[in-house]
């Protein structure tokens, strides 16, 4: 009798715990057909609610809850009387990567791929926005090309194309679906007018020597190959035969993320707002004082909350894309006196670019390359239903406001459509079905990436400023940064030209053909 009352007493407390919080235990109960092949035990046919708490109706849930309670009471369980937010990052990490875009996750994957001991280091990727609503990666047009003028850029693209060709060798996870990038092998087509034809020829020679498969077309050959182009004013065209085209950036991002997490990278959603650092004062050769900082910990603020967690770390990687300049400012880069090293800011700022989706039933067909005109307008095919994606880079003086991602439709009417219709007469009759805007992590200095350490901060590696080419270079850049961190120098591709030295010495590495 008293045993029954004792049991009844424990039922009351259990009932309380079950109703309060442990929804997880009920979902774990398995479906088992009752004897006679009838209903599973927790499915009831009555439509009214229970009048009283009945112990035996919910037997499986009760037993599971009791089991969980017993396991929590044993040592070795992670039960604490305080409620801890499970989304907080760990208190310590070896490498913190600020920015969860494709570059950040590529670096995380390569770091774990290259580490000598498995679980040898703890890598944390901190991303501000779990929905990726403003991330440049997912808003990108997704193209990859080798038609650059700088050797480093060509090699980066070639290496990334090689990576994507064998992507399942690199990024496949056991028991999961293989990665399908939806790569369209249609190539890029650049059109050159009289004034810039010689630049295109020089670039063609550089590209050919580096191993990119590009072909030059005269005006006549161009008309023959692509009869829907109006070749007026076009003197030379350069067409990529292989390893060029476009793909789905979200798939690549998730492939990197899935593989990196399977290798042990920790993902955290939060914003890096502050750093704790120590400062050494060094004297330069000119008897100038230099404050060299070493980051000790990173303050990660939880989204929409006052909660934060300081993460002690050894190395920080700045892969924050369009917002890397702002992040570097919190460390004091750019806030010093104008003629000193500390006065030169990291020249990366967000620039808004519009992408318009248009529908044209009479447009060019399956073989449409990613066409880039010398006037700056570009377009590519999207899907099989006569839809195209187009846009243009605005002039320096007319850069749109970057405080939001609103689309200016008048910009299409004024700037994009006339040039597009001039180049492709079929586009005179089209309809804009959709549009979006995204940020370039624009390097205001020379529009090329910045990879490497900053002289004033001992342990912050930068991988940013790619000005629209971050996505297509991301696999190779990830590998390069991982080599820089783990081996101390570049092993496969020599990207010393992308270091901070050129910014501090004011020697720009300019590239032609920026879109």
């Amino acid at each position, binding site marked *: 009798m008293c045993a029954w009352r004792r049991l009844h007493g424990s039922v009351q407390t259990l009932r309380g715990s079950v109703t309060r919080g442990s929804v997880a235990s009920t979902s774990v109960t398995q479906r088992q057909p009752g004897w006679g092949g009838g209903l599973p035990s927790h499915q009831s046919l009555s439509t009214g609610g229970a009048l009283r708490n009945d112990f035996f109706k919910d037997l499986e849930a009760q037993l599971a809850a009791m089991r969980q309670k017993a396991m929590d009471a044993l040592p070795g369980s992670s039960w604490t009387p305080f409620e801890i937010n499970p989304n907080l990052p760990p208190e310590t990490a070896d490498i913190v990567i600020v920015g969860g875009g494709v570059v950040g996750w590529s670096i995380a994957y390569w770091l774990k791929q290259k580490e000598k001991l498995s679980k040898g280091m703890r890598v944390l990727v901190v991303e501000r926005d779990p929905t990726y609503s403003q991330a440049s990666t997912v808003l990108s047009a997704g193209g990859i090309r080798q038609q650059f003028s700088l050797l480093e850029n060509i090699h980066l693209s070639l290496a990334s194309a090689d990576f994507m060709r064998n992507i399942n060798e690199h990024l496949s996870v*056991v028991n999961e679906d293989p990665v399908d990038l939806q790569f*369209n092998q*249609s190539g890029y087509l650049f059109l050159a007018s009289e004034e810039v034809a010689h630049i295109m020829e020089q670039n063609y020679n550089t590209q050919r020597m580096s191993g990119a498969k590009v072909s030059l077309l005269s005006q006549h050959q161009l008309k023959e190959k692509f009869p829907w182009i109006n070749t007026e004013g076009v003197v030379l065209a350069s067409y990529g035969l292989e390893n060029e085209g476009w793909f789905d950036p979200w798939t690549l991002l998730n492939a990197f993320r899935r593989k990196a997490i399977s290798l042990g990278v920790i993902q955290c959603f939060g914003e890096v707002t502050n750093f704790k650092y120590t400062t050494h004062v060094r004297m330069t050769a000119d008897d100038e004082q230099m404050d060299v900082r070493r980051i000790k910990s990173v303050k990660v603020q939880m989204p929409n909350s006052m909660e934060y967690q300081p993460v002690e770390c050894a190395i920080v990687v700045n892969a924050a894309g369009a917002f890397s300049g702002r992040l570097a400012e919190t460390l004091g880069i750019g806030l010093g006196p104008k003629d000193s090293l500390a006065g030169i800011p990291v020249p990366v700022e967000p620039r808004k670019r519009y992408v318009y989706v248009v529908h044209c039933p009479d447009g060019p067909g*399956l073989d449409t390359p990613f066409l880039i005109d010398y006037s700056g307008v570009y377009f590519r095919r999207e899907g*099989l239903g006569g839809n195209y994606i187009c846009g243009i880079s605005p002039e320096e003086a007319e850069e749109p406001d970057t405080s939001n991602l609103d689309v200016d439709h008048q910009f299409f009417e004024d700037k994009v459509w006339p040039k597009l219709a001039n180049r492709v007469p079929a586009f005179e009759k089209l309809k804009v079905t959709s549009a979006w805007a995204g940020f370039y992590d624009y390097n205001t200095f020379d529009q090329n990436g910045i990879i490497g350490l900053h002289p004033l901060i001992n342990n912050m590696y930068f991988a940013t400023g790619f000005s629209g080419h971050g996505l297509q270079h991301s696999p190779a850049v990830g590998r390069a940064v991982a080599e820089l961190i783990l081996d101390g120098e570049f092993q496969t591709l020599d990207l010393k030209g992308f270091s901070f030295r050129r910014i501090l010495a004011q020697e720009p590495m300019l590239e032609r053909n920026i879109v």
Partner: protein
Amino acid sequence: MLLNWRAKVGRDRLQRKNLYYGYTRKFYGPEIASAYYILSLGGGFRFVGQSEWFRANSRGKFSWEFLNYKDSLVEEVDMSHTVINYTGLSNLERQQHLRTLKLQGCPEVDDWFLAGLHMFQDSLEELDISHCTQITAGGLAALRNLRGLKRLNVSYLPKISSPGLVIILLEEMLPHCQITAEGYDLSLRQAVEETS
């Protein structure tokens, strides 16, 4: 971990089969090297001006007679049901007279392989890529470069999402080419059910 190891062994085996036959090429020339590669993978080929095919039998054994024809050029290649892939394609690099390429049922032929076919853009007249499971519409766009293509077989490709539309677009893209595309359900019955 065992699954990872098994996958890696499979990939290594594939890579070894598709290696670049540089040594053979240096000593015997590119045509003999390509011929040797084709035979060792289990395919067959025919020289220009001859009517007999050189093939490996089902056990993988082949005769070495092709060594007698050092200066002949390869005109037709049949690599159906072999494991040729993109790296193996580099072995066929300098075959400027290749007119027919049959790749029916090759499991490793994918979109990147089709993009690599641009090296035959002047000479290739017939291409058969039916039953290749990894080809999608994005790779078919790369066939644009094959200017001289007269016959194309794209039957039974499972990864093409809307086959009727893709076939029409292919016909527009390659106007002088005769396209064979069987094995697709091109009926309009589904669309009628949705609208009614």
